């Protein structure tokens, strides 16, 4: 090892607080005396900060956590911070409150909505998966919104505004009919690179704040506008989805 390499080794260990008190003292003296070494120490410190940033990858997914738990054979899934579960718990508490206090009435819409969200989520995810398994993820293929919108008329009770985001990198691929709660509802299908994004539009039942959940590797998001709730399912990453959601919602007729 050259003297230079040895110096760097000591410097690196000094920065990690791993030198013996005697060695650390010697290093401090050298740092005080050698400006060039100080500069090197500074670069090393900067590098550490940058490396730490670079290593901060997204954390383990809930899906991984769930499959580990399942593999070990716990009877119940580990507590995970699903927004829906929290909401349902809250709704259950509310419900107990309503019955306990004999205040059934005005609040029923809230718990109906809460109890309704899980089956709806199940249904939209199932619709998305069915679309992916089928030869194509849509029932009508068209990138023309003026073709897709009329196609829904008569087939579903909801006829959503069809938003075209082709020039923004999210081309419309077509439309599909999904069944949610026994009713036929429209789903708009978009593409982004290799990813498919399904946006299912269902009539809103009660207050539905925005929410997000992870299901089998898919992200499920929903938001409401007017008397409709929009459910998005995709395996696109969060950044891509955020862009899509913003573009979708900002478009005229595109909710929120």
């Amino acid at each position, binding site marked *: 090892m050259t003297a230079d390499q040895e110096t760097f080794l000591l410097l690196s260990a000094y920065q990690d607080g791993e030198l013996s008190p005697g060695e650390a003292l010697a290093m401090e003296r050298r740092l005080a005396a050698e400006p060039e070494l100080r500069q090197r120490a500074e670069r*090393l410190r900067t*590098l*550490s900060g940058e*490396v730490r940033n670079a*290593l901060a990858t997204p954390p383990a997914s809930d899906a991984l956590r769930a499959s580990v738990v399942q593999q*070990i054979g716990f009877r119940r899934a580990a507590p995970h911070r699903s927004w829906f579960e929290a909401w349902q718990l809250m709704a259950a508490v509310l419900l107990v409150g309503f019955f306990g206090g004999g205040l059934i009435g005005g609040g029923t819409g809230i718990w109906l909505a809460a109890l309704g969200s899980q089956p709806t989520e199940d249904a939209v995810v199932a619709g998305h998966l069915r679309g992916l398994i089928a030869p194509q993820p849509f029932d009508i293929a068209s990138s023309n919104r003026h073709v897709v919108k009329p196609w829904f008329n008569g087939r579903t009770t909801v006829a959503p505004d069809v938003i075209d985001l082709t020039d923004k990198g999210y081309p419309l691929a077509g439309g599909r009919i999904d069944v949610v709660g026994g009713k036929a509802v429209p789903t708009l299908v978009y593409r982004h690179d290799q990813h498919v994004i399904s946006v299912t539009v269902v009539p809103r039942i009660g207050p539905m704040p925005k929410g997000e959940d992870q299901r089998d590797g898919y992200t499920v998001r929903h938001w409401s506008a007017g008397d409709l709730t929009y459910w998005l399912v995709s395996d696109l990453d969060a950044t891509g989805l955020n862009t899509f959601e913003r573009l979708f919602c900002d478009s005229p007729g595109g909710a929120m």
Partner: protein
Amino acid sequence: MTALAHARFSQIVLPRLDEGYRLARWLTGNPTDAEDVVQEASLRAYRGIEGFAEGNARAWFLTIVRNTCYSWLQRHRPRIIVFSEDLEAEERNSVLDAGGVLGAEAPQTPEAALFAKDEAGRLARAINALPVPFKEVLVLREYHGLSYREIAEVTGVAIETVMSRLARARQHLLNLLESEPQ
């Protein structure tokens, strides 16, 4: 017995899944493989949980993840693992000086392709291309914040080796960042 094992697993392993995942993420080089490794490591940890008496639970679990990564790499990426602890220092040196050629032979994942395009991802790419023995000390030190002694325990090498690998990995990254155009 099982209930006890479950309870200990929930206490010792589950809270550390994230840390295990990040180690696996960098050692395997991609998120999907990391998930497989963490799943396998968790099962190993569960089987061994009764044998884990007292001590550093974190180092214990990270050791299992690290060893699972190595056996996974041996099975799926035999070319990456050729440099091991018994290589002569000079040989290791040349591997490192060649800019992590061995790491560069890893299949080009979409993520790697993205890194290649992204100016800000240059450092991440350089870290990814480090030979595994250097990468693991770097991640365990910079991300997990383990002491040299703990890193030595997890990786099964001497503290002096940890110290020199860490210094060389850092020097390598500095050289690389300074040589490439900004």
